[in-house]
């Protein structure tokens, strides 16, 4: 390995107190832009909290929070072009929101309704992926298709630190490198895979080091620093559009919440580690930054929060008022055309339903 490989070190603009540790580049220092970025964080946080409440009150199924990790997804969502394709994993609602997936669609999904993945505004992105690391393979296929299209678009795929232990992750990364595919890999290293800490997942020095196994350029970014994330993803996308090669970002964050609403992190997480991590979370940090560098005050803040809350509340209303699927709809999307045997099963199902109701 030459020294050129060895530039892995945590990139940061904001320290955990919200202080700039290096000057902002000119393309990212407009107030509206910086506040727009804040808005993405806030809406994600409020949505997240609302979803947890809905789950607690039996109005949503198991839900995977992104609390404390919002900066990663918001940055991805902000940095991507509309014609890029996003291939998410289940913790990626921050990005989905920015990609134009409706909040009520996200709720439908977590409410156990397939229509939540039939995005009305967003035609090409993949739905949330549950089987760990499988999405990386889809991403290289999407990247291949984008390369054919010759419009300089990028497939952006995400996964967790745990996902980087799995075969599909390596296979896809290796192929992306070998075939020079326009694909951005972003790993949310939130330090935990349910109860397993990342130190137990791998002896690799950093997750970013894994990219070298595939000859893919990589960097490590403070995933709780919204600005570093936005700049990092933008740079990566630019480079990919330019040289057509894949790129890999390890976004270092921390899961300051349960794995999902079905999890109880107190069984395995030290209170102290959690408290330390809470100090570094992106919303507090970013608000301090805005306050210090952009004259952001509490009134501005509560206005923004209120506006976002309204949006979330409206989405919840929409969600609650969504009519259930027609009975037997689940037969209709197995194939483009319903085969004879399934048509018969559907008829039988509907007959039974009538009889028993």
């Amino acid at each position, binding site marked *: 390995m030459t020294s050129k490989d060895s530039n892995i070190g945590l990139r940061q603009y904001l320290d955990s107190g919200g202080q700039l540790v290096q000057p902002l580049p000119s393309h990212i220092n407009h107030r509206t832009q910086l506040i727009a970025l804040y808005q993405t964080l806030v809406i994600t946080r409020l949505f997240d909290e609302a979803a947890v409440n809905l789950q607690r009150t039996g109005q949503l*199924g*198991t839900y995977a929070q992104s609390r404390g990790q919002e900066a990663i997804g918001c940055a991805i969502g902000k940095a991507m072009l509309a014609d890029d394709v996003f291939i998410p994993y*289940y913790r990626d609602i921050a990005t989905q929101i920015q990609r134009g997936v409706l909040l009520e669609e996200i709720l439908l*999904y*977590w*409410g*156990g*309704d*397939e229509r939540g993945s039939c995005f009305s505004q967003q035609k090409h992105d993949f739905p949330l992926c*549950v*089987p*760990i*690391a499988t999405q990386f393979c889809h991403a290289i296929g999407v990247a291949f298709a984008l390369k054919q299209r010759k419009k300089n678009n990028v497939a952006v795929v995400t996964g967790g630190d*745990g*996902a980087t*232990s*799995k*075969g*599909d992750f390596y296979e896809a990364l290796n192929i992306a490198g070998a075939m020079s595919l326009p694909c951005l890999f972003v790993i949310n290293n939130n330090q935990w*895979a*349910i*109860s*397993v800490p990342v130190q*137990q*997942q*791998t002896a690799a020095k950093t997750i970013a080091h894994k990219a070298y196994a595939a000859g893919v350029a990589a960097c490590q970014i403070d995933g709780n620093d919204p600005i570093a994330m936005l700049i990092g993803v933008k740079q990566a996308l630019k480079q990919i559009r330019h040289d057509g090669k894949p790129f890999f970002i390890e976004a270092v964050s921390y899961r300051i919440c349960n794995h999902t609403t*079905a*999890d109880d992190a107190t*069984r*395995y997480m030290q209170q102290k580690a959690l408290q330390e991590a809470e100090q570094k979370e992106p919303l507090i940090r970013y608000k301090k930054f805005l306050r210090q560098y952009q004259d952001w005050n509490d009134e501005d803040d509560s206005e923004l929060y209120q506006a976002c809350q309204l949006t979330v509340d409206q989405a919840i209303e929409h969600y609650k008022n969504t009519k*259930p*699927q027609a*009975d*037997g*709809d*689940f*037969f209709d999307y*197995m194939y483009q055309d319903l085969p004879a*045997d*399934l048509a018969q*099963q*559907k008829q039988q*199902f509907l007959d*039974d*339903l009538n*009889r*028993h109701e």
Partner: protein
Amino acid sequence: MNELTMIEAINQALNNQMRANDQLFILGEDVGANGGVFRATDGLQNEFGMQRVFDTPLAESAIVGMAIGMASQGLTPVAEIQFMGFIYPAIDQILNHAARLRNRTRGRLSCPLVIRAPFGGGIHAPEHHSESTESIFAHIPGLRVVIPSSPARAYGLLVAAIQDPDPVIFLEPKRIYRDGKQAIEDDGSALPLDSCFLLREGIDISLISWGAMIKETLEAATLLAKKGIDVEVIDVATIKPLDINSIIDSVKKTGRCIIAHEAAKTCGLGAEISALLAEKSITALLAPIQRVTGYDTVMPMFKNEQHYMPSSQRIIQAAIHAMEYR
């Protein structure tokens, strides 16, 4: 004697066998400090240490492959796959190696391992957390496939699976993990891996099922009894190798048979049972065998999962149909 739920009985069986066999190791995702996402391994790491109960990195193929390597050298690994929906990356290791190591080496090496996985629907879980694909494993020569339907059978069958010298896929119907308790003697005694369980005797019709569906099947039997239909209920439990003789005996007696399972219909285990009956006891049949199963669709996400899963109503209707058949 403790009153235990199924998940507690599984935990008890693991604990018992860990004590009995110091070469037994438990591995999987979140089986350590977390005690498994359903708590099947709760407390075991504390009691037996990090060496014997360990969290693996997130890699199902390697979990099973590693267990094969361990088993080949005389250890007894019990691997957990967190949900059956995530067992597929490991099918290659299961089918191409675990099931074949003894035969491949003509008995020089063997593969005494257990792979536990919660399966089946009905708990309002996310996608991929509710499927039943036991027949895929039943098709693979060299495996045992075992599915308990009560705390006591979970205990006794898991002990048997751990003690068995060959690879066992042990599927746990999570819908009934906490569905009532049974008194269980923690004496490490095993149930046989080659016999169905006769849960209810009757002379009019045989209802054949396994796993969580035993619940609907027994419900159906009770309701049918009220209509004067005397139902026999068989819990297949040891899916592979299959004890078809007990099923044939029952059907020879009753002349009618309904098979109920959650899995998709086409090439489900119901097909095999039905085919064997058609081959071996066709003359005993007073009515066509019926299968009451999941449909040949993806298991819907949870808003509609109850539409997918066979109800006791559907079983009853099939039974009445069979009784009325001329």
